[in-house]
């Protein structure tokens, strides 16, 4: 009888970064001859039969070696449920945002994150192996007592960018282009500091390019923070220069990447930062702030800032946008870095890690 590794996902959205990863891990495990299903607490947009309710999991069949792989990215009752189950556990850690970022803006989200962070050490003693997107994440788990850990990056669906672009949107973006086009992709959340990107754009328009525009792509994790950004944009008179798209489809995202001159990330907390790889894939030069896992993901594939004061960011972006040679060099560096996270390499890392568990 085949071994089984079933994934348990608190919130499963097949199209988002973790959803894409979960599907890729499932396919990889099945490809290795390991039985693998996805159990969820809630899901949106999953195909019929793709995800099952976690409470419906019946347990291992007699004689079957089974591990439960918990996708850890938030606090959830699912963790408590798994802790009570007898099967050995695996954890795939995508990091949980420190609650302090959310408490002033969305206290209830802060409480949920705090709950999640308190659950992490409880999993340490029952986990055979913890997979981590980054060494940054791994260090957090080691600190709270996880004994066996490995860095195995998240799977990114690069192919989806090559399947099509919203040509109408791309045409509009390029036709209306008067100045540099800044882009950031990520949920609107206090830890991602989109307000600081707006601030830097305001400085950039004042000092370098009054026609520059910024697009912030991503659904909201905090209504209060989103509202503050919208009001800030209005107060600075940037209504026509800053676009908050909300959650968009892959063809629209591809259009925004193709129209962008620079990807600016001033996030304070990332467990990996998939959009950096997406920017590299789409040949957009990157300017990013040196925080948490960002330097590890970026490598030499973009410019890493230790100072994110608006003038400093604006000046670096001005150089990137204004110097074609530098822009091309950053794109080439991005491509080189991207190779380290190619699907083949990530798959090989995962296969090795899984074999170390199942033997």
């Amino acid at each position, binding site marked *: 009888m085949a071994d089984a590794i079933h994934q348990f996902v608190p919130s499963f959205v097949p199209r988002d970064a973790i959803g894409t990863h979960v599907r890729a891990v499932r396919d990889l495990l099945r490809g290795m001859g390991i039985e693998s299903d996805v159990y969820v607490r809630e899901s949106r947009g999953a195909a019929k039969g793709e995800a099952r309710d976690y409470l419906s999991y019946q347990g291992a069949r007699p004689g079957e070696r089974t591990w439960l792989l918990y996708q850890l990215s938030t606090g959830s009752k699912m963790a408590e449920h798994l802790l009570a189950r007898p099967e050995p556990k695996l954890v795939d850690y995508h990091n949980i945002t420190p609650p302090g970022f959310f408490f002033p803006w969305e206290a209830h989200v802060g409480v949920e994150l705090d709950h999640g962070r308190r659950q992490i050490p409880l999993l340490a003693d029952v986990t055979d192996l913890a997979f981590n997107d980054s060494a940054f994440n791994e260090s957090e788990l080691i600190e709270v007592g996880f004994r066996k850990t490995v860095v195995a990056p998240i799977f990114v669906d690069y192919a989806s960018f090559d399947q099509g672009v919203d040509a109408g949107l791309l045409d509009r973006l390029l036709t209306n282009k008067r100045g540099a086009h800044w882009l950031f992709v990520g949920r609107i959340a206090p830890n991602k500091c989109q307000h600081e990107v707006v601030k830097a754009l305001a400085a950039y328009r004042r000092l370098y390019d009054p026609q520059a525009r910024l697009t912030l792509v991503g659904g909201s994790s905090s209504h209060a923070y989103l509202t503050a950004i919208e009001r800030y944009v209005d107060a600075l008179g940037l209504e026509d220069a800053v676009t908050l798209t909300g959650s968009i489809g892959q063809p629209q995202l591809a259009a925004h990447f193709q129209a962008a001159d620079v990807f600016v990330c001033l996030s304070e907390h990332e467990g990996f930062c998939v959009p950096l790889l997406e920017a590299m894939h789409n040949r957009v030069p990157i300017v990013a702030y040196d925080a948490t896992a960002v330097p590890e993901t970026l490598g*030499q594939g973009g410019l890493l*800032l230790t100072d994110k004061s608006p003038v400093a960011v604006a000046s670096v972006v001005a150089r990137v946008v204004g110097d074609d*040679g*530098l822009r091309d060099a950053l794109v080439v560096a991005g491509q080189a870095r991207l190779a380290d996270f190619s699907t083949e390499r990530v798959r090989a890392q995962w296969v090795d890690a899984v074999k170390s568990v199942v033997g």
Partner: protein
Amino acid sequence: MSAQQPLDHDKLLAEIDEEVKRRRQSGDIPADLERELDLVFARFAPVDALEADFEQVLTRAEQATFIDVLAPVESSRPVVPYFKKIVRKVVGWYLRYVAQQTTSFAHAVTRAVRLLGERVDALEEASPLAASKEASADPAVLAPWTGFVVERLRGTTGRVLHGESGNGHLVDALVKAGVDAYGVDPSTRDEVAVHLRALPEGSLGALVLSGCVDYLPLGAQLHLADLAGAKLAPGGVVIVVSQDPRAWERAEPNRMADLAPGRPLRSETWRHLLTERGLEGVDVVEGERPTGLQAVPKAHKAMAENIERLNDMLFGPSSYAVVGIRPA
């Protein structure tokens, strides 16, 4: 540059940093641009993220006592707004009833907090801290140190804060030297500390403290030392420019010494405080000494020692600077 050339990130960023410094020096980049952008965002940030100003927070709370029962009905889907309008109308009587009571309760609470605030104000007026209002920085103390501070901070990366900035002379000199400097002047009692508390940890390239460090009560001086340790970025520099306590006592006219709630600390005390807070290489630089009594030949040993003692007491350095660095 070309795409084939290997990219030296550090060199490139250093070049850009130099360019920014040149532009700041030439006045091309407005000195208060970043502060202005910060202040605008602060208007929309939640109460927890505001500078710890009681009046500002209470005003926000009072504004929040109004409960709007007219929930927004917009939607991206065509029929939903009509549906929402119907729901709003149907439950409106109930929501208004609850909202009126909640508003009354919230108003009563904020009113009570305001009254409490007034009582605390009255108590503060009677406390030594209130006497700080009578004190202010003596520009004559800082003036001889301007060149020293500018040279010490030339080339600093990140923002530099001067508290208490007084007439802005030092900030002007720093900006002219290409430093991203700004100042806070205490129009209220502890504005420098209030401003520092609101800054993110590790956000300052350097901090210059003068004026307030002379006259604030001991507790407030210690708090400034705590904040200096916390708010400097790795590698950041703190410079405390203060009067020597003996010079403070003998200053003429001596109004400040009588009215101020605190006294300047000795230079060695600042060295100790900053070292205790994790700053490295803390160094004391003495100001110039005024001409004292003329020394007598060594043969008159007792007389020579007494003159030396008198010179120390009466003609010691009037001010000093203490410099510390946060470890990188």
